[in-house]
């Protein structure tokens, strides 16, 4: 049996690695993706341009503009001369927001009457617009506080305040979240794509019939098909584990041993899904499209694109069946939170269950196709 198994593993490895272009595709893009998407995938809002429509010539409005341009997140202040220009600047997306100050602004501030600043935002980018609104609130609150404290000297400062501490990621660096997440996503995409192609390619080329007449048992064929993607995936992830702390400076705090246990369960769960798709497809094209049909929901329900807690309840239930959802918790935990082994295992057993289900399903389907 071991001899047959070795032979089929060697054969499958050759099938994947023989084509030099396929070799490049398996190893180079995962790294390019790590760099490009790691830096691009941020929900922070920085370097934005903000318009100011200032109809007030007083000291107060000048101070506000100064405070705005002093904010590290604002790239440029765009002066705007009329209400029509406000519309044009927002429509044409040259600014994300326009701050409007009326003629009375400075006068009201000087006489301690409440002054109201109008701000309009580009709702086409509602997420970024809200973040900009929060920045603006903070800038205005700071200015207000300094005015209030000079107006009411000695009366009373705020009696309560809050101290904010960010655990696991003290500067809230977005990259620290993206990198462990990309490990989960990139290994999933390449693992599924490779597995889904294997059987479909044999069928398309007609070599599937030869497999049927060979002395291989069903499980031996199956294991032979699984080993190469498992090796490729583990190798890529191992290289990520080296690169992410050294090049990107993201801490790797947890236990590597439990991480690899979870990774193996994760890869097996994915390979099972890939095999199912592959066994159901008649051609490579169908296999590829089927894999793609799985990849998109797996990414969207993983918690990487947006938190699982934000989803409607029934989708949260569905997300429990998503291996990437569980492995994302493990990956973020092992990188940032020094997650204890018990917690990692608590998120690993669902992966093992999913792997068991998908692999059993795949082998049953295989048996019916092979016999």
């Amino acid at each position: 049996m071991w001899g047959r198994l070795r032979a089929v593993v060697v054969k499958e490895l050759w099938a994947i690695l023989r084509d030099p272009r396929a070799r490049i595709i398996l190893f180079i893009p995962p790294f390019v993706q790590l760099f490009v998407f790691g830096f691009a995938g941020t929900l922070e809002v920085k370097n934005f341009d903000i318009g100011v429509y200032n109809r007030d010539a007083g000291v107060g409005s000048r101070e506000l503009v100064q405070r705005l341009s002093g904010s590290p997140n604002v790239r440029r202040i765009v002066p705007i001369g009329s209400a029509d220009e406000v519309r044009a600047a927002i429509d044409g997306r040259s600014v994300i927001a326009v701050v409007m100050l009326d003629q009375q602004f400075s006068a009201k501030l000087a006489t301690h009457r409440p002054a109201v600043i109008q701000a309009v935002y580009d709702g086409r980018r509602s997420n970024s617009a809200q973040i900009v609104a929060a920045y603006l609130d903070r800038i205005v609150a700071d200015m207000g506080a300094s005015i209030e404290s000079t107006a009411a000297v000695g009366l009373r400062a705020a009696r309560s305040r809050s101290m904010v501490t960010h655990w696991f990621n003290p500067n809230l660096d977005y990259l620290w979240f993206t990198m462990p997440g990309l490990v989960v996503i990139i290994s999933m995409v390449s693992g599924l794509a490779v597995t889904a192609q294997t059987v479909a390619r044999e069928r398309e080329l007609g070599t599937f019939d030869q497999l049927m007449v060979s002395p291989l048992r069903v499980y031996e064929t199956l294991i032979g098909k699984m080993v190469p993607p498992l090796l490729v995936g583990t190798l890529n992830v191992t290289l990520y584990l080296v690169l992410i702390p050294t090049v990107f400076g993201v801490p790797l705090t947890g236990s590597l041993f439990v991480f690899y246990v979870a990774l193996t369960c994760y890869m097996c769960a994915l390979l099972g899904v890939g095999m199912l798709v592959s066994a159901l497809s008649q051609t490579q094209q169908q296999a590829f499209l089927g894999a793609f049909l799985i990849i998109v929901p797996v990414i969207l329900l993983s918690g990487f694109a947006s938190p699982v807690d934000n989803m409607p309840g029934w989708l949260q239930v569905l997300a429990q069946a998503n291996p990437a959802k569980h492995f994302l918790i493990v990956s973020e935990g092992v990188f940032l939170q020094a997650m204890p082994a018990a917690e990692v295992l608590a998120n690993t057993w669902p992966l093992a269950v999913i792997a068991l289900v998908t692999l059993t399903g795949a082998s049953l389907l295989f048996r019916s196709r092979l016999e």
Partner: protein
Amino acid sequence: MSAGFNWRRLSAMLVKESLQIMRDPSTFLIAFVLPLIMLFFFGYAVSLDPPRIRIGVALEDPGPAALSLSTAFERSPYFQVNGARSVETLEREMAAGRIHGIVVIPQDFSRRLHAQESVAEIQIITDGSAPNTASFFAAYAEGVRANWQAGQDIRPGRTARRSIEVAHRFWFNPDLASRFFLIPGSIAIVMTMIGTLLTALVIAREWERGTMEAIMATPVGMPELLASKVIPYYLLGLGSMGVCTLLAIFLFGVPFRGTALGILALSGAFLVPALGQGLLISAVTKNQFVASQVAILSAFLPGVILSGFLFEIASMPTAIRALTYIVPARYLIPPLQSVFLVGDLWVMFWKDMAILLGFGVLFFALAIRSTRRRIA
């Protein structure tokens, strides 16, 4: 292969290609089922709106002031509060990922609040492993405290009104529903998949099987060959866009303030570079596996990540920002969001359409060149 252009030959080829598309169920899978799934998930699963965050409040002070602050946290619509006496319990919960933030109201809170010289401090601890949620939590928790403080300050004859306030107005999307911009964006992704992914895959198969050479041995000329390959997918792409648009409007309630002409012109312009890229990939790789991977890497992933669909381009590092200029989807997503939420902004549309067509010409020219070289 003849040089002339013959309409009869073209129509014969078109019939053949269309039959081939209709016979393969996987084409329909990607043209109609996949868009449905994408829209469905972007409509329901992905939300960039402020979440209802699960937090823990450690109330170490039994005084009435501390209790009323803790109640203020429980009443906030943004939080789902898990109360506990000790910080240690909550810390374990957070390490396990069951809660995403902790508010600590320390033992001396009431005493310090009422003492003349001191300031009462609460601690806000966030789970930084999810930075977006963490910053939302920090901002909202501070807001709850500030409002509570303002409520405590109201006394007869004095209002808690601030000296400057900002009145925010969000144009085009006053309810701030993130799906209003995610769904139009996902239509662009669907068209990328049909235009580039499907085309690259199908034509790479013809190369792989040698049927491309077989066609080239017939009297069909290069222009007819390309047109017959491209036109059915062009129509498929437009059809799928139409289905998506109707679903977006009637199922997901995304407002549509532009015109049918506007969205048709934009999608029509976008499909030219998308198909050109698909042709180019297939002509260069001539292998289904490699073509599919190249299409994902060069069209699908950049379309999602580098186009401004999910992530703000201005926030990216300079080198990556430069890279976004060569992603065609970058020029489709803003006008597509505008045609839904704002209206037909032709000034913006013309510019983006011209750039898209420019990319289209480039891709087609490269694809023809690499096909020619192959034959020679």
